[in-house]
C-alpha cells in the first residue's frame, strides 16, 4: 500500500457512487490488547461483503483521513485512514495503520464480492 493520495482516493470513491458495491469495514486493536495491558478495553467491529449503494462519498482531513459514504438511508464511516491501494481486481483498499505499522482500521469497496 502507499500513503493516501487524496485526489486519487476521491476519484475512486466518486467512480463507485450510485453502484452496487461490496463493503469490507473493520476496526481492530488485536486479540491480545487486553492480555498485554489489563487496563486496555478491547473492542472492534467487522463486516465483510455488505452490499449497498451510496449516493456520494468523501475523503476528508489532513491525514490520517476520514472517509464517509452517504446512503439514502444511512451512513458508512471510517476514521484513521493512512494508506490506500487499488489492487489487481480493481478493489479500492483503504487502511489505517497505527504508529507501529499495525492495521487498526480498514474500509474496502468493490463491485464484486471480496
Amino acid at each position, binding site marked *: *500500500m502507499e500513503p493516501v493520495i487524496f485526489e486519487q482516493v476521491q476519484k475512486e470513491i466518486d467512480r463507485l457512487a450510485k453502484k452496487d458495491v461490496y463493503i*469490507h469495514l*473493520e476496526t*481492530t486493536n*488485536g*486479540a*491480545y490488547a487486553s*492480555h498485554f495491558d489489563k487496563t486496555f478495553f478491547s473492542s472492534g467491529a*467487522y463486516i465483510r461483503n455488505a452490499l449497498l449503494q451510496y449516493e456520494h462519498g468523501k475523503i476528508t482531513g489532513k491525514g490520517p483521513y476520514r472517509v464517509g459514504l452517504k446512503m439514502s438511508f444511512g451512513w458508512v464511516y471510517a476514521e484513521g485512514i493512512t*494508506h490506500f*491501494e487499488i*489492487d489487481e*481486481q480493481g*478493489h479500492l*483498499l483503504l*487502511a489505517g*495503520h497505527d504508529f*507501529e*505499522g*499495525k*492495521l*487498526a482500521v*480498514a474500509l*474496502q469497496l468493490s463491485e464484486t464480492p*471480496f
Partner: protein
Amino acid sequence: MEKERHVLVVFPHPDDEAFGVSGTIASYTQNGTPVTYACLTLGEMGRNMGNPPFATRESLPHIRKKELQDAANILGITDLRMLGYRDKTVEFENEKVLASHMGAIIKDVNPSLVITFYPGYSVHPDHDACGAAVIRAVKEMPAENRPKVHCVAFSHNCEEEIGQADIVNHVAAYADQKLAAIKAHVSQTQLMVSQTAINLKNQDPEVIARFHYERFWSYPF
C-alpha cells in the same frame, strides 16, 4: 520425550506452531516421527502488514499461506492441512460441526499424540475455540482409542487454575530451526525477530528459557 507413532498439531493461525511448539515439532520430525499440522485459518485478520505496509487485507492470506508452507518445510512437516476457516470467526462456528471436522481429521491421521491449545487458557478466542473442538472430538472417542492430548496455555491465570505444565520439552538442540520457523512468518514476525535473535546471542535468561523449553499440559479426560 516419549517416542510417538504420529503427532497431530491443531492450531488456528499460521505462526501458532512457530512460537510455542516448533522445537518440539522439529525434535519429532528429526527422529523420524511424522507430524501432521492442521491449521484452521490463514490468519486473514492479522494486524502486522509490514512497515511500511507490504500486505493488504486482501493479499495477507496469500502471503501467510506461503509463509506457513515455508515454516512447515523448515520443521520437516510433510502433511500440512489448511482447513479453510476464517481468522477471528472460529468461535462463531457451529461447535458440533467443528468438533466433528476435528474428529474426522483425528480418525484419518490416527495420531498417538495431539497438540493443541488448552481451551479457556489460551487468550485468543480462536485458540480457545480450536482447543475446545479438539478436546470435544477426542472425548467423543472410546477411551481406549484416544490419543494423548498435550495443550499449550499462556493466559495470566493458567498456572493458578490448572497448575504447572506437567510436560517440559528441552529443545535447545533445535533452536536454529525454531528461529528459522519464526522468521519464515515474515509478515508477522519481522519486527520482533531481530530483537529475539539479539537476546539469544546475548544469552538473555528469560528469552533462553522461553526459547529452549516448551511447556505443555496433559489434558485430563
